């Protein structure tokens, strides 16, 4: 039996950010488990936006959490880059989306109105502006908009990051600060205990005082064996990547962004397809056509590669942060938007895990809300 103070199961964006925060706060001996290669790795497949756009429509606490996280990104990246020596290609010039039809625009106008009202009711803001075609076009002088674009929105303070460099930087810093990264082991069984939890993997057995489960859809399997239903569901997204171009698009849109390396990433699809991570021609075609409808120049680029990944969705879209009923030393962290929320996962979630007192601003993100 190998012992630790805290074990984090899941080395993706959520687990790595939380593990990093734990070692930054001198939480003792912390182990970070990452599954063997071959399983779904949604943290390596995402789009890389850092945004609060359209988040929290039915949950003002989440809208607030996402906005605060976006504002934390600059400081988070600066510290991470300093500690790790890895540039994470963060750009915070704002974000946006183009509207291809009046109906699409009306939906976003209404969403923005509701989110602004919710924000003002809690004494905050939702700094999103709806723009007509001409004003939207001025945000990206080097890109010519397609004829169908009727307008767009600008999301102040949002941005994008290279999620792969970010994950690497978080893991490296975790290790450099004394955390122990344990790759290639699968957790088979968790035996809860008041002061000591046993974690059995396919290779070894570990004991810890506190356990953090941030294993994406893998958490469903682990928690199911303890009789806990997390209510997570899979949602597939597919995207395409083009060859590299000089910097042309200064802000990331929901469906198209240009990376720091120059590639264009295209795609914002949502599908119910179980855990199938294959790409499909019809969805890619639709994504490509809509991308080209926004920016006709995309049609002249090469489609270099594409992939699909399965988002970790909660029923209401807000994150899930809770302890397991009857076990206040087993923490569960799950949900979509692990890139946007990484600063919060590194800064606030570790404090909750260390001192055991759940902060007021995340009290609403518990399991109880799904058991009605």
């Amino acid at each position: 039996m190998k012992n630790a103070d805290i074990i984090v199961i899941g080395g993706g964006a959520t687990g790595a950010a939380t593990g990093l925060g734990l070692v930054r706060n001198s939480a003792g001996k912390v182990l970070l488990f990452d599954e063997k290669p071959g399983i779904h790795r949604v943290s390596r497949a995402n789009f890389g936006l850092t945004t609060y756009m359209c988040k929290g429509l039915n949950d003002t606490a989440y809208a607030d959490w996402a906005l605060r996280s976006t504002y934390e990104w600059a400081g988070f990246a600066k510290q991470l880059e300093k500690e790790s020596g890895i540039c994470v290609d963060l750009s915070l010039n704002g974000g946006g989306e183009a509207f291809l039809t009046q109906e699409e625009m009306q939906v976003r106008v209404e969403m923005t109105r509701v989110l602004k009202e919710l924000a003002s009711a809690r004494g905050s803001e939702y700094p999103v502006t709806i723009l007509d075609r001409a004003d939207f076009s001025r945000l990206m002088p080097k890109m010519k908009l397609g004829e169908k674009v009727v307008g767009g929105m600008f999301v102040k303070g949002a941005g994008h990051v290279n999620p792969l460099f970010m994950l690497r930087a978080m893991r490296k810093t975790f290790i450099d600060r004394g955390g122990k990264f344990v790759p290639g082991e699968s957790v088979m069984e968790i035996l809860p205990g008041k002061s000591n939890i046993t974690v059995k993997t396919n290779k070894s057995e570990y004991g810890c005082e506190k356990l953090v489960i941030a294993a994406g859809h893998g958490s469903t399997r682990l928690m199911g064996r303890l009789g806990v239903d997390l209510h997570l569901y899979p949602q597939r997204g597919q995207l395409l990547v083009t060859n590299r171009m000089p910097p042309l698009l200064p802000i990331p849109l929901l469906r198209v962004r240009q990376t720091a390396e120059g590639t264009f990433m295209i795609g914002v699809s949502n599908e119910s397809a179980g855990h199938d991570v294959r790409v499909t021609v019809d969805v890619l075609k639709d994504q490509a056509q809509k991308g080209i409808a926004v920016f006709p120049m995309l049609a002249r680029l090469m489609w270099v590669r594409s992939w699909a990944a399965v988002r970790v969705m909660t029923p209401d879209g807000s994150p899930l942060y809770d302890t397991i009923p009857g076990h206040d030393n087993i923490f569960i962290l799950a949900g979509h938007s692990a890139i946007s929320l990484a600063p919060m996962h590194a800064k606030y979630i570790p404090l909750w895990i260390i001192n055991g007192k759940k902060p007021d601003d995340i009290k609403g993100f518990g399991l109880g809300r799904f058991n009605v």
Partner: protein
Amino acid sequence: MFSSYEEKEKTVTIILDGRPEKVSEGVSVAAAVLGTGEKHIRRSPVTGELRAPFCLMGVCYECLMEIDGEKDRQSCQVEVKEGMKINRQMQVTGDCK
């Protein structure tokens, strides 16, 4: 830098950056150009950095060259042909409008 491990009898002539070059028949454009002694075949459109073919099996997209008037071809995936016009992409152009 590179040389052929097997001297082939048959050659074809390609036009590389406007000059004729005799290269082995049946090889890829990327291999042929490297075989002429060129070390770099393009500049990164983002940083202007000098680049060269890397994986030579169609994955990395580092070997992009203009072949018979078409830019950004994966030169490791194209076989040399007699009279083929190949230009290295050493100019960074940002024209996209």
